[in-house]
């Protein structure tokens, strides 16, 4: 009995040893790991699958949330972290991290109003902030009417829907509201979760989307892809330069193109409320975090190779999933920064 058990244990150990890859100084890494933001997870995993088919390198990305991603990269348990909200340059310097934008998307306010077609209802930024502050409470309020002459608005209560979980989407949305409303900035502020003055919370984009679909007279905010897939009624927003814009890949890209990345220290640039008549005002980028000094240069190079491949070949896949790829101008800037900043232990650049 005991002998058989011992034999089995030995066999299991033997098999385990067989599968453990020898940890030598292989020039080519076969697996890299990352963790973080949930928002870009669909596109990262699609890229990872395609990259694996092409090169044989496995990219293991766990979408545990931006906060988790930051914690994991600081604990050095992963090769790269991912966050929807950029880290402040001071924080980056303190932890020795480099961040760069990888992919973009838009956050879209959506409403449930019978008889109102997608894009038919218009709002300016102050109005949206005041609805979320609980100051505009009904759909036939004079200020909603002023923005939408000719639209039949019901005397219905506005039910505000927000995210219940901490989220990069909320970060981008509250960042926008803080920029356009001094009162929002003073009272509520900008974070992944805030003390919402009114409304109910749905878990995840799907939670918000399902509440908005269900509750008549509700307004919520979701990532662009969810608004499309759930056929929700989006709102046309007035941007900084006075243009009323629809959420679409073109308007997200317009916001990104007008953003000044070159002068953004540590790529700390938030794409909300950007100039340009065609810019969608609630656009956001998702960021990758890596150490500036790579103790395992081969792994670091492997990670950079993957992201370079994604920049060059991933645009179409991203667009299929309703994400917006980074403009070529920004990619050149990012890769120049890789060369300049990321070093091996001897201080030599690992990206050429």
């Amino acid at each position, binding site marked *: 009995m005991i002998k058989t058990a011992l034999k089995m244990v030995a066999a299991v150990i033997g098999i385990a040893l067989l599968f453990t890859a020898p940890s030598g100084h292989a020039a080519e890494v076969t697996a890299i790991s990352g963790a973080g933001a949930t928002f870009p997870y669909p596109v990262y995993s699609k890229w990872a699958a395609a990259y694996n088919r092409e090169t044989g390198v496995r990219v293991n990305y766990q979408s*545990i*949330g*931006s*906060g*988790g991603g*930051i*914690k994991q990269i600081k604990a050095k348990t992963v090769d790269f972290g991912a966050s929807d909200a950029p880290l402040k340059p001071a924080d980056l310097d303190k932890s020795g991290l480099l961040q760069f934008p990888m992919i973009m998307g838009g956050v879209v306010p959506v409403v449930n109003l019978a008889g109102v077609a997608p894009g038919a209802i218009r709002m300016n930024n102050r109005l949206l902030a005041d609805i979320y502050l609980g100051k505009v409470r009904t759909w036939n309020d004079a200020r909603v009417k002023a923005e939408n002459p000719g639209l039949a608005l019901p005397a219905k*209560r506005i*039910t505000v829907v927000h995210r*219940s*979980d*901490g*989220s*990069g989407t909320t970060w981008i949305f509250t960042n926008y509201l803080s920029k356009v409303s001094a009162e929002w900035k003073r009272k*509520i*502020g*900008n*974070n*992944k*979760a*805030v*003390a*919402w003055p009114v*409304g*109910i*919370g*749905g*878990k995840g984009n799907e*939670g918000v989307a*399902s*509440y908005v679909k*269900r*509750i008549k007279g509700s307004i919520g905010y979701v990532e662009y892809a969810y608004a499309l897939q759930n056929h929700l009624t989006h709102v046309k927003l007035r941007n900084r330069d006075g243009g009323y814009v629809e959420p679409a890949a073109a308007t997200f890209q317009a916001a990104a193109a007008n953003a000044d990345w070159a002068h953004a220290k540590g790529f700390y640039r938030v794409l909300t409320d950007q100039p340009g008549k065609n810019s969608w005002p609630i656009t956001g980028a998702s960021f990758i975090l890596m150490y500036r000094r790579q103790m395992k240069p081969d792994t670091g190079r492997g990670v950079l190779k993957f992201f370079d491949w994604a920049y060059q070949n991933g645009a179409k896949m991203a667009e299929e999933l309703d994400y917006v790829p980074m403009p070529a101008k920004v990619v050149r800037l990012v890769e120049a920064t890789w060369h300049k900043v990321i070093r091996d232990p001897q201080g030599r650049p690992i990206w050429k």
Partner: protein
Amino acid sequence: MEEALTSLMKTRMRRGVIIDGLFYHGTRIFAWAVLTVMVAILVSLFMGAAPAIGKFGFGFLVSPAWNPVTKDFGAFVSIYGTLVTSVIAMVIGVPVSFGIALFITELSPRWLKRPIGIAIELLAAIPSIIYGMWGLFVFAPFFGDHMEPWISGFLGPVPLVGVLFSGPPLGIGLLTAGIVLAIMVIPFMSSVMRDMFEAVPPLLKESAYGMGATTWEVVRHAVLPYTRTGVVGSIMLGLGRALGETMAVTFVIGNANRVHASLFMPGNTISSSLANQFTEAVGEMYTSSLIALGLILFLITFVVLAVAKLMLRRLSDTRGSRS
């Protein structure tokens, strides 16, 4: 020949002693492991919650604030939501479970017993996330469109009680969460109660029936006194599950950090706050406050269990003195 036999017996006995010893120590290690894990959880919760406890003190328990921007945290809304939803679940769940168990053991025709029993066990095996999705996509719309307007029309004008059932019928909120919880705990409570009722010796019941007692009198005076401990135990099992249930509640409670008098309004429970916010909580005070919430839930369940044990002891004491 005889010598060989005794030596064989000796080796067998020696082997028996060794194996017995191994078995004894093995089980003892397992038993101690439970205690160690439990203490380790408590210690790590305390350590994790220390910064929040240090900053907010006892005010944490009564403060309704939860503001990640200003880093001002309090547990009151979550505690309130946890207790209110659990109470609703118990108010609905206990009588229903009792009725189910009673029907199966005392009243049901023989051919119906097994199907109902199996159905209850299947319900108990459904993962909570399924209840959550059902609650969000099926129950909440139905409840909001058809039940809540009716309830508020019916009970709304009643003084004192009316305020509990006022407000917009969203279909999402404390009441919905409590009802979904009730549906989730009923299988647990009713299957334990059924097992208890079935364990009552037939002799006891038949004697009571023989004395001319009605079914209800048999249940009240023969079955219940005999199964009291088990019934209280099953209620505590259900309460424990209701207090700690996470996913199903998170789906239907509305996740708003405010206290409303109305049960129709959205709220928050401790476990739903944790499920919602832990992944994205950045900063020491935020994480620590969430862990402090976990510690509070741990203590609440501990108190519930302790009270249950005390109640049981008192029950068995009074029974002992009376007979």
